[in-house]
Structure formats: structure tokens, C-alpha cells
């Protein structure tokens, strides 16, 4: 069992809600958005963990906290043993090389004025790596080969608008890889790509993973997470409600929310039509958190105790945790 590359412990991220002029004058109580309310998980080298959940669950805030793009209110983010939460901007710079991010929108994540060559080279320039321009070009070509944009000559001098969405996303991944990171945070890496192209990019991530890269994937797509990730952590309203090996979570879900989500994901086979558990209403906003178990207002099997007691995330099966009083 290898050492965890990334260890998130009791992470808390809150955002204050602006009271506005009237609110400040009227001395209305400050409210906060409990984006992430104490989560813990780990990521090993060569492992892909998928953070799954609907909008407002806190997965994006978690990713940003791990990348230290936002400040953390409590908890620890240990990367290679070192807690990032206390490190200042200056100290973070060398770390940023080993920790990279790929964004959701391939049409917006590349500067339209830079050619592919320049886009992939830029990280090297920012971090003053790669010595001579010849050396840098070599590394750029290598990165393009790694993302299967081959032969690189075909792509080096192109502008983003001359490429398809899938190719743009590969360029973005190449730009992330050129610094040779050990951890990649992928925020919905394929949700804006056409279906026929998604598998290509996901397979690429899978092969990078097998070569040793650790990947934290943020997604709302359970099918993709189930197929490509090693482990899945399901988030709801700032907490992890279930976490375990991908296949176990999907085949033997332990939390009612996970079960409901899995039941309503449409299947390809029209003969597999079934009535899933369609929950009423929508995820409440993260300002007014329900008491007890956060899921209890929408839970199909909630009992009285769920309104009062907050369930802890504990093992229901070996290596498979869930936060529910009933399982």
C-alpha cells in the first residue's frame, strides 16, 4: 500500500454572503455558504479518484482548495506530506509544478491568441524551466506526443480556433503535462465535448494514470466516473456521503442519495427503462443547512432520528464508507 500523494483532512471552505448596504446598516446577521464542511479523502500515485455530485455539493470548491486557488478555512491539504494550507504564494510556486489542473471548457481555457506551441511552452517559461529554446521545444513536442497529438508538427503552429474541442482539450492536458506533475486535477474534463470524442480524452487520462499520474476528477457524470475512476466519493451539500472503490459504490451503494442518483441515470438500452427514485425538490442552498443528516428532507427512507443525529462517514463494507444511520 503506497503512501498517499494527497491527503485531505477535515477540509472546510466557507464563503461569506454579502449583506449589501441595507443588510449592513440593518445589522442583519452574516450568513455563510458552507461550500465544503469537513471532508477527508486520499489519493495515491497512479490512482484516479472521482468526486461526484450535483451542483452546489462542493466538489468544485474542493478542487480549488486542493489547488490552493482559494483559501481554506479549516483542515489540511497534505500534498507529498506537506500541508499546503499554510503555505504562502511564494512557497506555492514550486509546488504548482507538481500539481496541475485541466478545466472544463476547452473553448475558453486556451488563449485564442497563442499558438499551440506557445500555449504548451508557457508553463516552462513561467517556471523558468527547460533551459534553451531548443530544449523547450523538445519538451513541448514530447508533451504533444504524450497526448496523442501526433505528429506534433501538424499542431505546433495552429491556433486554438483551428482545432476541434477534443484536440483543444488535449492541448490543455499537454500544457499541464509539460511540467511533469504528479497530480492532475481534472474539472469536468469532457462534459463540453461531443460524446464520440469523450472516450478518447478519458482513455488518454487513463493511460496517463497507468503511467503513474494521480488524477482527481470532478464530475457530475456517474457513468463516466464508474467506468474510469478507481474510487468514487459522492458529495452532497459540502460533505462526502459515500466513498469507496468505483465498482462497489455503483453496484452496492450504501447511501440513499447514491442509490437515488444511480437509479435515475438513463441507460442506453431502451429495454432497460425503469422508474428510478426521482427525488422531490432540489438541493437546498448551502447557507441553510438542514439539521441532523443533511439529506433527510429529500431522503426516501428517512426516519425521525435522521432529523436530529448527524451520521458519521463510517465503513459499511471493507474500504467502503457511507454516512447514513440506516445502513
Amino acid at each position, binding site marked *: 500500500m503506497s503512501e498517499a500523494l494527497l491527503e485531505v483532512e477535515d477540509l472546510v471552505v466557507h464563503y461569506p454572503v454579502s449583506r449589501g448596504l441595507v443588510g449592513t446598516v440593518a445589522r442583519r446577521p452574516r450568513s455563510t455558504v458552507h461550500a465544503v464542511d469537513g471532508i477527508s479523502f486520499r489519493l495515491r500515485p497512479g490512482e484516479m479518484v472521482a468526486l461526484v455530485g450535483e451542483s452546489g455539493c462542493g466538489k468544485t470548491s474542493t478542487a480549488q482548495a486542493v489547488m490552493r486557488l482559494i483559501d481554506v478555512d479549516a483542515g489540511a491539504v497534505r500534498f507529498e506530506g506537506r500541508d499546503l494550507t499554510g503555505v504562502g504564494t511564494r512557497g506555492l510556486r514550486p509546488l504548482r509544478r507538481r500539481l496541475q489542473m485541466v478545466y472544463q471548457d476547452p473553448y475558453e481555457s486556451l488563449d485564442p491568441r497563442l499558438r499551440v506551441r506557445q500555449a504548451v511552452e508557457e508553463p516552462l517559461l513561467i517556471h523558468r524551466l527547460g533551459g534553451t529554446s531548443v530544449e523547450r521545444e523538445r519538451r513541448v513536442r514530447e508533451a504533444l506526443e504524450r497526448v496523442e497529438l501526433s505528429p506534433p508538427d501538424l499542431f505546433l503552429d495552429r491556433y486554438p480556433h483551428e482545432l476541434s474541442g477534443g484536440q483543444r482539450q488535449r492541448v490543455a492536458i499537454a500544457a499541464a503535462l509539460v511540467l511533469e506533475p504528479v497530480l492532475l486535477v481534472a474539472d469536468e474534463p469532457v462534459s463540453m465535448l461531443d460524446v*464520440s470524442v469523450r472516450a478518447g480524452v478519458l*482513455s488518454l487520462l487513463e493511460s496517463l494514470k497507468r503511467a503513474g499520474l494521480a488524477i482527481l476528477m470532478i464530475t457530475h457524470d456517474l457513468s463516466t466516473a464508474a*467506468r474510469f475512476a478507481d474510487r468514487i466519493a459522492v458529495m452532497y451539500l459540502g460533505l462526502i456521503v459515500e466513498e469507496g472503490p468505483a465498482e462497489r459504490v455503483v453496484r452496492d451503494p450504501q447511501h440513499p442519495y447514491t442509490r437515488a*442518483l444511480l437509479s435515475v441515470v438513463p441507460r442506453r438500452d431502451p429495454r432497460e427503462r425503469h422508474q428510478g427514485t426521482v*427525488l422531490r425538490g432540489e*438541493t437546498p442552498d448551502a447557507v441553510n443547512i438542514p439539521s441532523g443528516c443533511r439529506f433527510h428532507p429529500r431522503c426516501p427512507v428517512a426516519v425521525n432520528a435522521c432529523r436530529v443525529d448527524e451520521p458519521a462517514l463510517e465503513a459499511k463494507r471493507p474500504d467502503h464508507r457511507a454516512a447514513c444511520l440506516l445502513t
Partner: protein
Amino acid sequence: MTPLLEVEGLHVWFDLADGGELHAVQDVGLTLQPGERLGLVGESGCGKTTTALAIMGLLPPSASAAGRILLEGKDVLAGGEATIRPHRWVDIAIVFQGAMNALNPVRTIGAQIVEALELHEVVRGAAARDRAGDLLESVGIPARRAERFPHELSGGMRQRAAIAMALSCEPKVLIADEPTTALDVMVQAQILELLDGLCSDFGLALILVTHDLPVVAQLCDRGVVMYAGRIAERGTVEELYHEPHHPYTRLLFAATPDLDDLDQPIVSIPGAPPRLDRPLEGCPFRPRCDRAFERCETERPRLRGFGDGREAACHLDQLVSV
């Protein structure tokens, strides 16, 4: 039985800035029976949204169209805007892609529904407000929320409001363009459940335009698969999944991960769709097809029927024809 909607030989061209033309929709046809749910499936750029807009007569001034659009037997495309306009919203309505973000931000949702009602002279004044309340209830929004502005509602609620607006004049056909694309899994399920219920309760015919195959498999009876502005295949959703004729249909399903089938290798289709601003030789799918042969390079396959509304445009069918 006369089909409710019949599209024949629809072509749409867009003028390009440099003087050329983009042939976005090429010889598309479809039929829709009352109460039927049809899925119009394809990826970005295949022409499905343009087809939907053409049916509504909502093409921009840079577009030109040819073909016939028969609404209950009458050609409404023949006179352009003049002939389509009386039917718009009253007989066919559309929920646009991203409609939830296209609601007027400075008017309450109730007022916007009332506006649609009054514009089409269905009812006015207090009667219109009552009807707006009923419509909101029928899409699962409590009537008292009519006083709310769009930004006060969640994404799912706004989508429901957009659907209510589309149903305000009791159309016979509803076109929903990517109705669940930007929504969460659970909200998507709610919207699909809503559409299912509305179709059943009101005998509404539905054209669901989407790239999401599982959604079509879940909600629709029949499907039409489009590629590069043309129809690749059509049939019932079971036929399309279990016995696809066209390689694109087969590959598209294969490229979609499925929770029930985690071990199946996921396929991606290399390359990208062809440019539609130049004439094409041969089959448009050939560069990306895994079963292409010599004939595919020179001759464009015609849409061949197999009876009962089953059609496919692929030369492979002729190799094994009985």
C-alpha cells in the same frame, strides 16, 4: 392516419461572411404522429437544431430553406414567415436550448406566460393570469411563484417555466432542444419525468433534440440519427440500439458509457465531422468509419427503407441485402 407533422426534403443553407454557403441541413425528412415521441439525435454541428428551428420557421435572415413542412397536411413552409407564423406557438412550440437562461430577467415568469397568452389571443387579463397559474402548476411550480423573477428560481425551475411558456397555447407538437443538458442528474430526471407526464396527459407529440442517447432511449419511441446535415438512420429506439444499421449509430452507442455495462470497452470515434461549406464526395462518415470500403469513397449512400419507418443510409446494407 395523417401524420401530425411531416417534413419532406428539407434543405437549409446559411450565408457565410466570405460569400460562400454552409449547407447545414441536407434533404431531411421526418414524420410525427399525434402523441408520438421522436428523438432527433446527433452531435454538435449535425444540423438537428437547425432542423428544429426550420420547423418553427425561426431561421435567421442569413438562412435560406427549401422543402416541405406539412402540419396536418398543410405546407407551412411554402409562404415562409407568413404561412408559419399563425401556427407558431399555437400548433407547434419550442423550448430552446438554454431556455432557462433566456427568460426575460426583468419580468416575472407569470407575466411572461401572460404575455404569450395575450399575444396569441388565447385569453386576456385576469383569465390569462389564472391560466398562467394553472400552467405553472402543471409543470410542478406552485402558482404563487408566478410573482418571481427568473433569477430567483433555480435552473430546474426556470426550465419548467420555459416549458410552461411553450405549452401556454396548447400546441399539438412540442420541440425540446437539449432540455436537460445543463442540468444536474436528479433535475434532469425530474424534467424528463415532467415531459413524459405532459405528453401522456395532454396527448402532446414531442420532438426531443439532443446528443444524449440514453435520454432518447429513456423517453422516446422512435429516433432519427443525424450526421453532417443528413439523416444516417431512423427507427424505433430498440432497433437503433439492438440492431443499428449505420456504423455511426453503432459507434455512438458504443462511445456512451453505461452504468449497466461497465466492462464494455468504451469507444471513441476518431476525427471530426466534415465541413459543410463545400460539396462532399462519397459518404460523409467515411473518414471516421470502421467499416468503410471503396464504394464509400465515391458514392454517397442513399437513405434506404426496410419497411415500417426503418431507414439507413449506408452501403453496407446493400452487401447483405436479401
